């Protein structure tokens, strides 16, 4: 549990750091204007090309848009995985070093081993993506290289650093123990820094296409590549992807642990993979908690950059996609909580807090229903369609926002409560002040829920822009409640007795399916959100600057988009199962069987 608390506080520190940066950025409503007086692009500084359909090479049997879409999505799945895993591997390694507990070290080593096989698939899918862009969208790619040329070169060179760090980190693991451990962790830190920079550079291309900066209205590039990189959406996307990568990495290694648990031959293996699954689930949930905040920030920046794009995103055709998002996030929360409830069966005897689980389950289900039903009424999609048309705002983002935000914040609190109950089940408070502290924690939950619900109801009575702004106090309430309760719990846990033992390995199989649900839902959700991000550009390659004149410029229906996302998810899982299988080869199988059955501190 301390491990999780450390990961969480680390993540929180990052959020605070990023959040502390000027959140009201100095962006311009229009793209940065060129300093020279001429309105028109000049011969030496041409604008974005105006393409026609003839400028797009086509090949029989190959749908260009689909090719780039699948290649990009696969690349993002793998990249998220290989960037997220080293972050929590370093943290776990650090904890193991501080505790002197070699089990943490071995688990961290195993996590990084899983991501090794994925690393080359990341590069492969990246290569396919680049070639697909060069061959099928040469006009767009030429323009992007004109703007980002130096950045692309830097990106390519940094892969040398990434490879060097990763291989040194992984292959040096066993030999760099003892006195050399700090040096090994420094390599791990370097790996993470390089990985984060790589992600940041690549993010800038995506955000430039959505909200171009550093170019004028015709797309003429003035030469300041930093202005093109640091657009209004860049930092929000960096934060969002950084956090989401950690959560995603956790979910995928959780699936690995679940699979290995099901396939385990010996009780020792079951113990090992059960503990791994529990840790992975924890990482996924802890990193998931601040994500709504990052998402809110990103949407706020989109609205600020172009209210038209913002309204298209939340109020037009795309609004329906957020209903699907709600279903997926509800699934994720239910799966994670279900896993925790099953986890309580690891404890001896009657669980003192287990009876509360059904209430939490009830709360989660209600929130889920509120969230994925527009206007909080249960209406079938056909009824809604009968009411609305292409731009119908029944989904009226602004009308549903109040309910949605309220529900998601309650779900986060409910999940956190589950974690606390899980934790408390294993300890007995010995000191009298602890009972009072617990009452205080209950009070914090009650007050937090009341505040969130009140803000949600209040939102129905205020104008739209105030309503959107109410999300911030709701999230702040949730975060404060969590931080206060974690702090108190840590103190209580440190001074309490452990009662009974945790029987790692004693988990029902259905709990492993919950971990798989987590991994599949996370992947599918990522695919969906990636589609949304890309498609709100609609018929633009670079929004308002370079028009997409290809035959595939149309926006597909939601069903069609979902089908592609599903295909990408299936393809990814087929490949990742291959990676899991590869990681089974190796010499440290012996290490796992040496694990004792005694409970490891969660």
């Amino acid at each position: 549990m301390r491990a999780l608390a450390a990961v969480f506080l680390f993540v929180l520190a990052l959020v605070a750091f990023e959040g502390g940066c000027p959140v009201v950025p100095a962006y311009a409503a229009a793209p940065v204007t060129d300093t020279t007086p001429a309105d028109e692009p000049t011969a030496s500084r041409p604008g974005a090309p105006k393409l026609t359909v003839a400028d797009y090479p086509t090949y029989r049997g190959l749908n260009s848009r689909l090719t780039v879409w699948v290649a990009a999505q696969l690349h993002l799945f793998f990249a998220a995985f290989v960037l997220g895993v080293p972050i929590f591997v370093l943290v776990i390694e650090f904890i193991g070093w501080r505790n002197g507990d070699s089990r943490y070290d071995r688990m961290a080593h195993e996590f990084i081993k899983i991501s090794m096989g994925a690393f080359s698939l990341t590069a492969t899918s990246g290569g396919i993506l680049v070639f697909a862009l060069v061959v099928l969208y040469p006009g767009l790619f030429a323009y992007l290289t004109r703007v980002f040329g130096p950045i692309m070169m830097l990106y390519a060179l940094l892969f040398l650093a990434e490879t060097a760090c990763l291989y040194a980190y992984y292959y040096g693991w066993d030999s760099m123990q003892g006195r050399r451990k700090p040096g090994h962790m420094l390599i791990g830190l370097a790996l993470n820094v390089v990985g984060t920079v790589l992600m940041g550079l690549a993010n800038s291309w995506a955000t430039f296409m959505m909200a171009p900066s550093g170019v004028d209205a015709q797309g003429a590039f003035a030469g300041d590549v930093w202005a093109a990189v640091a657009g209004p959406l860049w930092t929000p996307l960096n934060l969002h992807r950084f956090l989401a990568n950690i959560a995603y990495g956790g979910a995928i290694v959780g699936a690995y642990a679940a699979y290995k648990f099901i396939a385990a031959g010996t009780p020792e293996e079951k113990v090992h993979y059960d503990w791994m699954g529990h840790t992975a689930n924890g990482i996924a949930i802890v990193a998931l908690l601040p994500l709504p905040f990052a998402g809110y920030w990103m949407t706020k920046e989109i609205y600020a950059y172009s209210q038209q794009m913002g309204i298209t995103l939340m109020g037009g055709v795309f609004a329906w996609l957020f209903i699907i998002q709600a279903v997926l996030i509800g699934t994720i929360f239910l799966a994670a909580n279900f896993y925790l409830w099953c986890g309580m069966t690891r404890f001896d005897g009657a669980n003192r807090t287990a009876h509360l689980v059904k209430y939490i389950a009830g709360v989660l289900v209600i929130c889920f229903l509120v969230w994925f039903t527009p206007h909080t009424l249960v209406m079938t999609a056909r009824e809604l369609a009968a009411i609305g048309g292409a731009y119908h705002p029944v989904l009226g983002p602004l009308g549903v926002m109040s309910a949605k935000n309220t529900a998601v914040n309650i779900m986060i609190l409910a999940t956190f409560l589950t974690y606390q109950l899980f934790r408390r089940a294993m300890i007995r408070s010995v000191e009298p002040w602890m009972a009072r502290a617990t009452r205080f924690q209950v009070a914090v939950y009650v007050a937090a829920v009341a505040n969130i619900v009140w803000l949600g109801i209040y939102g129905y009575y205020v104008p739209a822009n105030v309503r959107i702004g109410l999300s911030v106090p709701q999230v702040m309430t949730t975060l404060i409640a969590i931080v206060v309760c974690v702090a108190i719990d840590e103190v209580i846990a440190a001074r309490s007795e452990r009662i009974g033992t945790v029987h790692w390995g004693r988990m029902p199989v259905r709990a492993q399916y919950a971990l798989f649900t987590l991994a599949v839902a996370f992947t599918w959700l990522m695919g969906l959100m990636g589609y949304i991000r890309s498609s709100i550009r609609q018929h633009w390659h670079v929004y308002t600057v370079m028009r997409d004149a290809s035959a595939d410029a149309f926006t597909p229906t939601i069903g069609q988009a979902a089908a592609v996302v599903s295909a990408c998810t299936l393809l990814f899982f087929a490949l990742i199962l291959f990676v899991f299988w590869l990681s089974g080869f190796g010499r440290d199988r012996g290490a796992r069987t040496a694990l004792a059955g005694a409970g490891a501190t969660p």
Partner: protein
Amino acid sequence: MRAAIRNRVEGLIRNRPSWKIFETLLYALGMGAIFYLVDVLSMRWQGLALH
């Protein structure tokens, strides 16, 4: 029926909600005030007002 009700009422009186619940509610009120302050400040930070 009347006996059952009388038993129940007697049981409730015997096990009065203890001061612990009131204490918790008091903490909740205090935290509620803090959360309200958070609401006002975070709205003001965005340039909006909490009416």
